[in-house]
């Protein structure tokens, strides 16, 4: 059974890649992932805005209340060195590279064009095998046209590509007027891979406190339908590779994604829920299914159920109400 695949130019032992999550924070976890069969890992995202805010926070608290009162001219010893920039993240990359053989993909969320490029370059220098651009942007300006937002994605990608030699994947949201066109533009701009999709945290309302609260939920199997559709639609039409993320919980989910056209699948919530060891379980499930159905390799099944190759290509384009309409008519 050949379960190898390729992603961003890397030959991988399987399509099981650990997606960006807090699990990647520790080198011990990375080793464990590799031991359990992970083919590659995407580290948690470096957020430029967060780094900046932390700098302000630290500066504020180290100066607040100082030089005011004669007995307490300051309240904290100031360390000679403070890791307020990306140093900790970069150190983690190099330690990860020393600890594991699988490709280590750094993930970046910038807030300025300069931030995107400088951090990407530093990640490359720290030893990252590839970079995943986690473009996490929720436009709320009523006067900002969608075209400007789309161009921002392109500009970021081009800027990063211009400063690094390692492969660059783009993790994007599904919220574009024409997802297919956006995907094409990104590939044209140099994306070595597309990661579909970014799952934004959706806030909730706490009725008791009357507060808007972040509601961080792990993905459910239903979440995989969206990337499944778009990978199936885009497969074979764009010269790039695809990573499927969201809702992949079982071996059969992996198989579905590969059949849709994914080169790799990103595991995240399932590992948060069941532990890193669960990678091996999914791999076993996947192999078992392939054996039972007499598939020889991952490459054999890749894209076999994409829009291009599936028996009913229109099914990927139908909206739900059409299906409902059809059902009504048949009654």
């Amino acid at each position, binding site marked *: 059974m050949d379960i190898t695949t390729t992603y961003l130019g890397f030959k991988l032992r399987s399509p099981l890649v650990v997606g960006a999550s807090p699990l990647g924070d520790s080198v011990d976890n990375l080793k464990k992932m590799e031991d359990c069969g992970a083919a590659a890992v995407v580290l948690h995202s470096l957020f430029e805005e967060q780094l900046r805010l932390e700098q302000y926070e*630290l500066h504020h*608290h*180290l100066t607040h209340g100082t030089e*005011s*009162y*004669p007995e307490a001219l300051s*309240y904290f010893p100031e360390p000679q060195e*403070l*890791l307020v920039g990306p140093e900790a993240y970069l150190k983690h990359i190099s330690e990860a590279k020393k600890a594991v053989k699988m490709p280590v993909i750094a993930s970046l969320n910038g807030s300025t064009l300069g931030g995107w490029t400088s951090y990407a370059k530093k990640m490359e220098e720290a030893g990252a095998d590839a970079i995943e651009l986690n473009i996490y942007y929720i436009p709320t300006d009523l006067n900002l046209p969608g075209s400007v937002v789309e161009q921002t994605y392109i500009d970021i990608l081009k800027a990063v590509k211009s400063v690094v030699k390692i492969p660059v994947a783009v993790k994007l949201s599904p919220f574009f007027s024409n997802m297919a066109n956006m995907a094409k533009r990104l590939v044209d701009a140099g994306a070595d891979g597309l990661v579909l999709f970014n799952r934004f945290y959706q806030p909730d309302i706490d009725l008791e406190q009357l507060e808007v609260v972040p509601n961080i939920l792990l993905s459910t199997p239903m979440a995989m339908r969206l990337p499944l559709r778009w990978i199936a639609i885009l497969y074979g039409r764009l010269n790039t590779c695809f990573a499927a993320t969201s809702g992949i919980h079982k071996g059969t989910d992996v198989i579905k994604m590969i059949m849709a056209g994914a080169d790799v699948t990103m595991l995240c919530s399932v590992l948060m829920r069941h532990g890193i060891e669960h990678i091996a379980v999914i791999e076993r499930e996947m192999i078992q299914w392939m054996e039972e159905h007499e598939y020889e390799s991952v490459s054999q099944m890749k894209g076999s159920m994409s829009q291009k190759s599936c028996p009913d290509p229109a099914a990927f384009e139908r909206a739900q109400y059409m299906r409902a309409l059809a059902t009504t008519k048949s009654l």
Partner: protein
Amino acid sequence: MSKKTYITLDGNEAVAHVAYRCNEVMCIYPITPSSNMGEWCDQWASEGKPNLWGIVPTVVEMQSEAGAAGAVHGSLQTGALTCTFTASQGLLLKIPNMFKIAGELTPTVFHISARTVATHALSIFGDHSDVMAARSTGFALLSSASVQEAMDFALIAQASTLEARVPFLHFFDGFRTSHEVSKIEMVTEDVMRQMIDEDLIIAHRLRAMNPERPVLRGTAQNPDVFFQARERCNPFYLKCADITQKVMDKFAAITGRQYKLFQYVGAPDAERIVVLMGSGCETAHETVDYLTARGEKVGVLKVRLYRPFDIKRFCEALPATVKSIAVLDRTKEPGSAGEPLYLDVVSALNEGLSKGWVKSMPRVVCGRYGLSSKEFTPAMVKAVLDNLSKAEPKNHFTVGITDDVTETSLEYDPEFSTEADDVIRAVFYGLGSDGTVSANKDSIKIIGENTDMYAQGYFVYDSKKAGAVTISHLRFGKRPIRSTYLISKANFVACHQPVFLYRYDMLKHLVPGGVFLLNTPYSKEEIWDKLPRSVQKALIDKKAKFYIIDAVSVARKTGMGGRINRIMQTCFFALAGVLPKDEAIEAIKQSIKKTYGRKGEDIVRKNIEAVDQTLDNLFEVPVPDKVTSTFDVPPIFPDAPEDIRNTLGVIYGNRGDELPVSAFSPDGTFPTGTAKYEKRNIAIEIPVWDEKTCIQCGKCVMICPHASIRMKVYEPQYLNGAPAGFKSTDARAPEFKGLKFTLQVAPEDCTGCVLCVEVCPARNKTEAKLKAINMQLKDPILDQERENWKFFLELPEYDRRKLKVSQIRQQQLMTPLFEFSGACAGCGETPYLKLLSQLFGDRVVAANATGCSSIYCGNLPTTPWTKNNDGRGPTWNNSLFEDAAEFGLGFRVSIDKQRDFAIALCKKLAPVLGDDLVTAIINADQSDEAGIYEQRQRVAALKQKLANVQTPEAKMLVAIADNLVRRSVWIIGGDGWAYDIGYGGLDHVLASGRDVNMLVLDTEVYSNTGGQMSKATPRGAIARFAAGGKPMAKKDLGLMAMSYGNVYVASVAMGAKDEHTLRAFLEAESYPGVSLIIAYCHCIAHGIDLDRGMGARQQKLAVDSGQWLLYRYDPRRLEKGENPLQLDSPPPKIKVEEYLMTEIRFKMLTKSKPEEAKRLFALAQQDVDNRYRFYQYLAQRDFKSMAPQQAQTPAGEAKQ
């Protein structure tokens, strides 16, 4: 001679620079103003900086100065080079060990930033009362007078002690020298190596206790030999002065700076001489230079080595022409024949005369000056010298004050000045929060390091923590600056906050033609009309050059928030002409990069942007020739009684120096109820009540640290005559049916800390971002709210006897007798004190340990403790840092004794008083408000009946009858007191069984002295002396107290569960034995958004994570067969790390030592898990079988 290297630093750092390199062990305990020396050493040790021998010294923080001295003694006895740093009460605590260390001829140096010893009041400022108290210990006393000398003498003392074997106390003036920033020649490590004789160190090692060659020290001796043995050390003392001079000479050969044990400066043929020690020498030197240049035959003798006092060298140092000497002591010894230096001088002259070292006996007079850093100026030196010219000079005089009681003071001409024309002198008025001082310290460094000019900075701080005002005094000149006094003739005055225009006479000290720089939101066309008349007049009279900048606007545009310091600094350099403008701006930018580089590129970028945008916004305002303003500086304390306005009001107006001796009580007594007169108006925004949304829960009133939001219920008719904008609504509680309810803010006393809004649980139904109180800009509503507040205060108080005190919504109707403190805006401690004042304030006797609470409770001019309408209220006192528990126990014993005596007298006087009254008094139930009210009525009746009885017993009973009303003794202090320095006393009082209540305001760090680690500091927290995160878990004080079995113990966090706090206070006070409440207090030293109302949220997170447990241990429950421990915290809801990462004290460790943070945070989680399980286990034990015979009852007397 070594190459000269210059450095700009303060006296403390100068001393630490030498002490660190010349020692291996430092045992310390924080105390102002010496704390920084230990902190520097700790910082260098944490950075791995080696000493002269390539070893990183060890810095040990002890539980008290007494502990530090013991550890020093031990370290010295076993051969390490050891030193310590302290001041004031700290030095006093070290005295017992100093006798031992000296008695054993052990070389060491104690570096002392000399500070006033507390007498009628505490003072953190400088004088020699502490070192004079230690002068009999056998230590040599070496006095340095400037930052340069402080560094030099630190080394001279170190070299001398090693050779002499006499331990040295090296002292310099607290604040004036310890905190003065000055450009000096650095003592390099190379110089230190040349000065320190390695053979002497080896000799010290060989004298050490060593089981390989055992010795016995510390024996007990009897009358037969002690005396002789004590005299055996004489040869060492006889040689000590020679050795010190020899070391000084060697130092001179290396550095070119020649010092003498007694250093004379002045006319060679001087007839009048002043003798003194410390920083005053520099001012005297400057004055003598000035006067001799004008032909006066005067001089100054600077005493360097005060002990051992070298009589011969003293006599020889005096010019033969001297006719009269004034000896100045910076201390007071009431009842003595004279202050110590004077007595030594008289004695020395007498002996010198007999030995022929002086030819004739000059007239010698003495005087006191400069107590508690009182200014000592050239004008005062001149007055002292002028006094000597008189036929009958005043003796035992004071100078610098007006003594209109015993007429000791010398008059002086405040206009007399010796300031040189070529010295640039600048004064800056700023707020602590705007960064003025740090920018000025930076300016001194810039000038010190980039030019050949000398620079000096001295900073006057505020005793308030919220809205603190700072005044910076900066001098720059071509010659070393000896002016150890504040600037009174400034070329440049900057006002960084426009509100100061209405509070301070800033232009008083501006020289004619000087520059006045004002930060103001007004344009150059508008500003003139916005100035008070007196400011306009001063600008015109002085022909001042007037500049303005809207620094707040520039700061806002460049993302600097409220930090206008770099903007104002740029203006200073642009206007003062110390450096060429471009060069100065480049230097500021370089400094920004150096200072903020490690904090991140963004911080640097913003500061540089602010500098770049400054000059375009700096404008000169032409000064008209006429005063046109229609208003002037408002009066201070306008509503206060005249005596308060004329004393405390004057102090508040920054003119306390002008008050004469007669303005004060002779024993340090002051009235309470004075904070209300301040009206500090420091809030930009204040909470405004929405009566429709309010649920009248009282939570905002309870949490308010400043008692500036209050509620009342009252009969509707009282609304007659209410101001038009006064808000009122129907009271919601069934008990208050038919009554009206008002929540009112004191607009001028509120600090705008937002805590009340944060804890408000009510949300507006149509716009959920609004609560029942919402912050609004103060200025537009100030007049209305001021009227409302005045009317609100006039509404009647609800009868305390009718309140259900266990319900916050009712209890918070009780009037706070603690209001408007100067604590930090949003303080976590003061809500507890306010609650205590509401519940029991009219009968509280409070003993307060030194610390934050003693400062905001008792630092002049005002106190937040106040009185109710009957004139009753808490009576408060601060003894020391270490003895609050014992002090409070003394209250209890005394009160109980007088109560017993009163009861005995009642019985004796029963025929006069009537049996019924006596019986009722003796058997009174005072367990609630009604009972206390009735007892007060009885005591009033008793006094009335005895009013005309003139027997001694009747008079005595009237004097002590108040003790018949139940007194509530409270012992208050922080964790530094309870866990560390005062623990021994606290533990003893816990074991006493007496009816006292101890309230530990646990901020988990020494907040008042700048964030040093205490044993209450949690694991993983960064604090001073725990720069790498505290490695050990927090001490469980509550558990230790519970082990006695008969102590009521509660651990509370008001911000997490206010009802629990209220219950604990009620239970503690009602418990007829010792009660201990450990109260979690969020604090500025935690690195949280204190001024944005986040304190309560942090308390909740601490409880939710299990980091702070809520529990009550009530021994009374045992009697009912119940487990005395009630664990009131539910199992932790969140991980500890989630909480830790919300406070900079923990989070910073993840940025400085990420791996260590990971390790310590994991251990912190284990601590929490284990502690919760342990408490749960204890709380679940079945005590049914133990009741009631095994229950322990308090040893103290039952509540009446």
